[in-house]
């Protein structure tokens, strides 16, 4: 029993890491621009597809393909901000909402056109399995957990320790005051979209390596990403981290002990229960 819980917790940490990376991107975009960037999941999966393409069709080693995909994600993020969201920045929020939905469909369509409808798995060649006590841990899962921790820590350091990171926070907390500090509020959304999309692409690669990518998968992840935001507390970085980890572990334990068919149901039931007790989310501030 204990071993089984431990086993599922480790599985949950890997998927939780994916949720956290997606949620961090969503929460940063939401904090700065107040938009629900629904296309984030599909864009993330594009990164997974791209890595698959670079590895299988171009023969690049995985370790070379990943940085290329991350940079491509950053550039894609800049494009999305300039082409899709910048034109509606001063318009009513419903316009950005419609743009987000349209963008989701477009990116899904592009993924389908470029990479087909077959599900793909990024070949990593990492097939070793460690056995610690009774717990089996595939080495890939360990790398995914480590990579997620490193990326989240890097993001936290960036936001807390650099001037640009602090400017991002400042714009999220008070846009006009940030202008008065000399922050260029035109370049901040660009940086935010670039970084968020890169984090999303990292998540997409993890999904492609751990599980599989297929059309529609991205939408599922973006819904989970928003669920994580609400569970953790909207606009809270630590909340997104805690929320993603909790959701991942809950899902895994539900899949291990009850049924994998019901894992989403159980995860959302847990989420609803948490929100009934703490409507502001786990780490959200009470209104």
């Amino acid at each position, binding site marked *: 029993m204990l071993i089984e819980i431990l086993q599922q917790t480790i599985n949950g940490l890997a998927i939780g890491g994916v949720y956290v990376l997606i949620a961090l991107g969503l929460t940063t975009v939401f904090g700065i621009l107040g938009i629900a960037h629904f296309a984030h999941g599909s864009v993330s999966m594009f990164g997974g597809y791209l890595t698959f393409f670079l590895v299988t069709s171009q023969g690049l080693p995985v370790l070379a393909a990943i940085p290329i995909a991350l940079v491509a994600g950053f550039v894609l993020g800049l494009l999305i901000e300039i082409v899709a969201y910048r034109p509606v920045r001063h318009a009513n929020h419903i316009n950005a909402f419609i743009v987000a939905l349209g963008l989701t469909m477009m990116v899904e369509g592009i993924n389908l056109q470029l990479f087909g409808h077959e599900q793909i798995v990024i070949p990593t060649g990492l097939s070793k399995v460690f056995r610690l006590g009774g717990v089996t841990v595939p080495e890939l899962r360990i790398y995914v957990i480590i990579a997620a921790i490193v990326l989240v820590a890097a993001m936290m350091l960036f936001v807390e320790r650099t*001037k640009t990171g*602090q*400017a991002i*926070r*400042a714009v999220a*907390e*008070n846009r*006009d*005051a*940030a*202008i*008065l*500090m*000399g*922050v*260029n*509020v*035109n370049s901040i959304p660009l940086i935010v979209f670039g970084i968020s999309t890169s984090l999303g692409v990292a998540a997409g690669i993890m999904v492609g390596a751990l599980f599989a990518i297929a059309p529609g998968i991205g939408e599922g992840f973006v819904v989970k990403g928003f669920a994580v935001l609400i569970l953790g507390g909207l606009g809270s970085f630590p909340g997104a981290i805690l929320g993603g980890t909790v959701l991942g572990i809950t899902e895994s334990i539900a899949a291990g002990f009850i049924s994998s068919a019901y894992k989403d149901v159980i995860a959302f039931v847990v989420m609803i229960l948490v929100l009934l007790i703490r409507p502001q989310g786990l780490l959200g501030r009470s209104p």
Partner: protein
Amino acid sequence: MLALRDLRVNYGAIEVVHGISLDVAAGECVALIGANGAGKSSTLKAICGLVPVGSGSVQFEGRDITNASGHAIVRAGITMCPEGRQVFPQMSVIQNLRMGAYTRTDKDQDADLGRMMDMFPILRERQTQAAGKLSGGEQEMLAIARALMARPRICLFDEPSLGLAPKIVASVFETLAQIKAMGMTILLVEQNSMMALNLADRAYLFEAGRIVMEGPAKELKSHPDVMRAYLGH
């Protein structure tokens, strides 16, 4: 140093500042006084690039900065301490102060941080607390210190006494006097006309988007119209 010429500011179709001209010389403390809604704050916001200038010009040290973007204006040397304090509520006191120095790249920022905390000991005490947890008076001190962290050439203060208890208002004005004594050029918007006129060298009286009187603060203070309408005598 700062010169406005025929400045007009409008929000959509509604014009709130109807062609004003004013000057602030280096080292001077100038107050804009007048009733609520007379266009004083809109004038400051137009200088800072927070609201667009309809027509007219803003010159700073001989350069035309009319409708320049807000961040470019800060880099030119103009910093505003905004109405309602506008601290970053979830960031710590230190982080707020460091944001004040956002445009700076010199190595004296840490030293300035120390100086600000010497000037406002309460900020040192509260340095790791979230700014939103501070009292109104403490937040005002933080907003003032944050503005000074930019090492501006001119500092604009928008209603620094608004919503504060009388005792705190007095200490805010003491602080402003201290900043003035340091040689800072100040443009102050204030509804508390008496306090503003006591502090300022010169003043402009705003009425319904126009300047109706200007002169040395002492003269305005003893002018019968000003006394009757704004000083409660």
